[in-house]
């Protein structure tokens, strides 16, 4: 919303020492956010009033003229101009060197300089309205028309901004900061705030009394809840003509285009008071006005030419035949102000905010009027709007008559009474403010204040009683903002110490994430909680959708299902990143949602779906590295308990995940429960995800099922007294023999002799160096005794016994 400071000065006298930048700052801090302060006259620097003394033909161009122009202070200069309406003694706008103009209304501003036009010196430019952004105030239809300012009294040399009263500052206010303040949607409301901030008197409107001769205007309001007040005024003796320049200039300055006197006055009243008004052409109204709900599919042709098909909850203004306006939003074409209009019915009505919002949203019509009604403006405001409107009509038309009048306002708005405990107030404010200071400010804002011992009773003004202010906390805010937030010093925060924060269930997620990021070289990603249908199909398959929740209005038709697993989004991220990288590792920790009911632990009425914190990750690389990718990822999960301090993790092969390769998969178990899976992505799933040249190793597990230890779980054992020996063995096995079986045989306690400390897998080899259908497994035995240093014989004997046992149980042979 744009606010003119000159307009504000109608209602509150602003002392000269108060700068507009200060007002903008104080309003921002205490009332509404002023986004920009624009000094209007800066646009018209170096543009002055000139009087044409003589128009001479240009020697070299038929269309150009040389104008001898008086630009004040006895200075007369020659200006070359192509204007078609140049006349002697005409007052014009002269742009002197340094002025910025839009040449022929073009987009960019150009600086005026003394120059030669077709061989003749020209000392400036005589402007058309479009060249100095005044087209809306001085419209023209014929090309090359320059502004004729002869009707203005100003002398030659007067700066244009002064002559046209454009010496104004415009504050641009962020509408969002006004949403809860219906009282501020007009200049008068802002003036009240300024008056309060600086303790200045505010001008009051005189109450308007209709003349006794006025008859009763018949208006029927069918729905009082949606139209609490309806003032109708029949005014005769009007005509269509431009409004006085002062009105035009004012509304233009705050962004409204002047149309004609009647329309301009209705706009002016709204901009001044925040109360929308509307004028219906009386001659086109058939019978009487009724405020009612529309009939089903009733048609309404709006004044912007659009035809609406109405629904039964749309509130409309109708005559005896048809709708003549969408209540509070826009008038109809047939009953708006027309070229022949000489009688109008001026409507100053109050409509229910919710009804207006619903209708304007339904039909997608957002007008200045609707915007104001949506904020819940108070019905009492009709009084000042009426007073101002009648005053403006009288000033603009000499012979008008108010012939009929009605004011349907059966149920007056109740003011809110709020009791505030002074003791409580002091606690909230953190400091004491004397009663008289509070009273002074609150009274200026329109509140009535009475004290009774510890109690302060505050009665809200009507313009703050439509939902804005209703509880003691609202009064705290009023006091705080008007006294200035900067005047409340930060008081230290005190605390009572009971226990240190210890939240292992919260910390576990961070530990895992930091482990994956910093130890396992993985990169954290964020994705959305919904999945792409293509990836659901690729990873989880179509029939899994029955276990998922969905959105009623999803971000796109193919993204309506919520994540029941993190893998589809992870795979999508892989596909996207494969355009730029061949090898990478990523993970995501996020919530998953299942179509299963869970009772809320907070409210017995509430039933929420099952939701878990999951974590999923992937290593992506070349197909020849598939072993490495799988084993790297397995290592990540194996070592997780060590770094994250949770109970042990073991792997089993119980049920193959649907997206996994037929052999390269494992179920992750923890605390006797399956908590997730680890596998290579199957070839089919890869292709469905458009992953063609890479192998992907994936895991997903449920963080909520991990049981964290309450403390670190490192164990200490004494350092061995006698040395241990590393003994490497390479043995040939059948391809089908698994490492788990080999290590189980070696670890078998019956044979271990207590000499085996540890067994380490080193390498697996298949290929030309070993016989067909065999593989070579290399591992290391770490051998030692707690009692003595082993002799080489003892070591050899032990190693031989291992080989023998492996030969007997698994058919292993030493590789030569």
């Amino acid at each position, binding site marked *: 919303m744009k606010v003119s400071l000159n307009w504000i000065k109608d209602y509150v006298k602003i002392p000269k020492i108060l700068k507009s930048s200060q007002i903008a700052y104080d309003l921002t*801090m*205490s*009332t509404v*956010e002023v*986004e920009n302060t624009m000094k209007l006259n800066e646009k018209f620097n170096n543009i002055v009033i000139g009087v044409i003394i003589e128009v001479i033909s240009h020697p070299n161009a038929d269309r150009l003229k040389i104008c001898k122009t008086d630009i004040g202070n006895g200075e007369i200069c020659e200006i070359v101009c192509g204007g078609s309406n140049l006349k002697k003694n005409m007052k014009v706008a002269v742009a002197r060197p340094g002025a910025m103009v839009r040449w022929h209304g073009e987009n960019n501003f150009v600086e005026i300089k003394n120059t030669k036009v077709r061989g003749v010196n020209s000392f400036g430019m005589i402007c058309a309205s479009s060249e100095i952004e005044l087209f809306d105030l001085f419209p023209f239809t014929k090309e090359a028309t320059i502004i004729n300012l002869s009707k203005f009294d100003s002398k030659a040399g007067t700066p244009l901004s002064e002559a046209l009263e454009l010496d104004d500052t415009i504050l641009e206010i962020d509408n969002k*900061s006004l*949403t809860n303040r219906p009282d501020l949607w007009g200049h008068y409301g802002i003036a009240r705030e300024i008056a309060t901030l600086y303790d200045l008197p505010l001008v009051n409107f005189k109450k308007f009394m209709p003349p006794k001769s006025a008859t009763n205007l018949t208006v029927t309001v069918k729905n009082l809840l949606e139209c609490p007040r309806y003032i109708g005024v029949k005014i005769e003796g009007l005509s269509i003509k431009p409004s006085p320049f002062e009105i035009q200039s004012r509304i233009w300055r705050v962004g409204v285009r002047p149309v004609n006197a009647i329309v301009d006055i209705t706009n002016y009243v709204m901009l001044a008071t925040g109360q929308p008004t509307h004028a219906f052409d009386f001659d086109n109204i058939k019978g009487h006005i009724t405020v009612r709900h529309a009939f089903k599919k009733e048609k309404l042709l709006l004044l912007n030419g659009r035809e609406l098909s109405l629904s039964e909850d749309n509130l409309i203004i109708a005559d005896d035949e048809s709708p003549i306006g969408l209540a509070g939003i826009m008038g109809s074409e047939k009953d708006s102000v027309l070229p022949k209009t000489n009688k109008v019915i001026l409507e100053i009505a109050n409509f229910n905010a*919710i009804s207006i*919002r619903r209708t304007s*949203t339904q039909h997608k019509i957002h007008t200045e009027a609707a915007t104001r009604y949506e904020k819940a403006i108070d019905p009492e405001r009709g009084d000042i709007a009426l007073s101002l409107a009648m005053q403006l009509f009288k000033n603009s038309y000499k012979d008008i008559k108010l012939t009929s009048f009605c004011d349907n306002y059966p149920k007056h708005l109740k003011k809110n009474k709020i009791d505030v405990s002074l003791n409580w107030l002091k*606690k*909230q*404010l*953190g400091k004491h403010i004397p009663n008289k200071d509070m009273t002074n400010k609150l009274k200026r804002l329109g509140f009535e204040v009475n004290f009774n011992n510890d109690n302060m009773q505050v009665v809200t003004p009507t313009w703050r009683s439509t939902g804005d202010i209703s509880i*003691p*906390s609202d009064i*705290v*805010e009023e006091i705080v*903002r008007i006294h200035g*937030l900067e005047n*409340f010093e*930060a008081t*230290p*925060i005190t*605390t009572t*110490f009971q226990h240190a*924060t210890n939240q292992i269930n919260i910390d576990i997620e*961070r530990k895992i994430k930091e482990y994956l*990021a*910093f130890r*396992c*070289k993985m*990169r*954290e*990603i*964020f994705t*959305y*909680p919904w999945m792409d249908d293509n990836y659901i199909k690729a990873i989880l398959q179509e029939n899994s959708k029955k276990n998922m*929740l969905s*959105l009623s*209005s*999803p971000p796109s038709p193919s993204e*309506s299902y919520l994540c029941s697993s993190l893998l589809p989004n992870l795979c*999508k991220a892989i596909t*996207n*990143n494969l355009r730029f990288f061949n090898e990478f590792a*990523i*993970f*995501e920790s*996020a*919530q998953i949602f299942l179509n299963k*009911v*869970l009772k809320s*632990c*907070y409210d017995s*009425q*509430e*039933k*929420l779906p099952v*939701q878990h914190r999951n974590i999923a990750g992937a290593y992506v690389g070349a197909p020849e590295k598939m072993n490495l990718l799988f084993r790297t990822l397995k290592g990540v999960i194996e070592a997780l308990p060590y770094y994250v301090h949770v109970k042990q993790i073991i792997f089993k092969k119980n049920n193959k995940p649907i997206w996994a390769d037929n052999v390269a998969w494992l179920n992750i178990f923890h605390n006797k429960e399956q908590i997730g899976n680890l596998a290579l992505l199957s070839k089919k799933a890869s292709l469905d995800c458009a992953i063609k040249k890479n192998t992907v190793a994936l895991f997903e597990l449920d963080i909520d099922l991990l049981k964290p230890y309450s403390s670190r779980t490192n164990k200490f054992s004494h350092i061995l007294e006698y040395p241990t020996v590393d003994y490497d063995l390479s043995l040939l096995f059948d391809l089908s023999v698994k490492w788990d079986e080999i290590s189980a045989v070696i670890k078998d306690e019956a044979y271990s002799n207590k000499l085996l400390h540890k067994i380490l897998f080193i390498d697996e080899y298949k290929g030309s160096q070993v016989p067909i259908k065999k593989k070579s497994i290399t591992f290391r035995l770490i051998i030692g005794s707690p009692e003595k240093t082993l002799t080489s014989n003892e070591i050899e004997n032990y190693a031989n016994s291992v080989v023998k046992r492996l030969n007997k149980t698994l058919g292993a042979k030493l590789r030569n």
Partner: protein
Amino acid sequence: MQEKINNILNEGTNKIKKAKTIEELKIIKSSLLGKQGVIKDILKEIPNLEISKRSEAGCAANKLKNCFNNLLKLRKEELFFKMLEIPLDFDATLPGIPPHTGGLHPITQICYDLNDTFRSMGFEIFQEQEITSELYAFDNLNFPKNHPARESMDTYWLTEHSAQKNNSRLCLRPHLTGASIRYLQTHKPPFRFVYPGKVYRNESTDAKHERAFFQYEALIVDHDFTFSSGKIIIKSILSKVFGCDVSIRMRVGYFPFVEPGFEIDMGCLVCNKKGCRVCKYVGWIEIMPGGTPHPNVLRSAKLNPEKFTGFYVNIGLDRLVMMRYGIDDIRLFHSADLRFLKQFN
């Protein structure tokens, strides 16, 4: 014979001296002393000699062997020391070999930094689930029944499922505040906790608008706590994020679940409050809303608003991270694009 031995000695000594690496030396050693080495050849020839010369030759061969052993040992030591010597042309300016590391999402990084800061001030961390009911998303929070935020163009409502029958609607949480009520309901006052998490709004996206974003709430509820003390919390947050002393100002603002409510601005760090393009020439950047919890919010947590008060702030981490690093497109955060994510360590 002696002559032959002398020749072998000279040749062998030469070879050993010329050896440049320990590997080369090993080969020379086996050519001299190995199974098929020259000494073996000599020893093989001995039985062919006259008996009187045999012992002499044997001695000479042994001498030769010892001699070679000594020379080899010396040369090996020499070479070893040479290997330890760092060549003069060593280029210390070659780029280092980077360790391969992953990393956390930039928003997670800031979130964890803030968690640490708040923990040090005795705050707990609270987490809640992302699907919530209308009761907790709106009703409890003083949103009027017909508030526009409840409409589907602003909130992601779920299609009806078994959990919803005869119950209130479910949605992806549009803000965190609803769930902080859950904390209030299950803990005993006074409280101080932070509540980080993702929230979702149904809007069309562009460089400045996202459907999913990360918020960070801090809430204190206590017997005595004025809004002005909240400044200390805000300063702590911003100083941690930006690593310097930032100036803040509070001004009036409206949010349904606080009263009084404030907009909190941070002094523009780009121009030092003088006014520049980043701050739209006002010197301040709007950074978060805050205020005293609305009495209805306290009531919904069964707390008496006449006895309890508090302070609340809600920080949009996305915007904060964007400002911190000058990121100009909010959609990058959820793009999972490693070209973006790899920049944050």
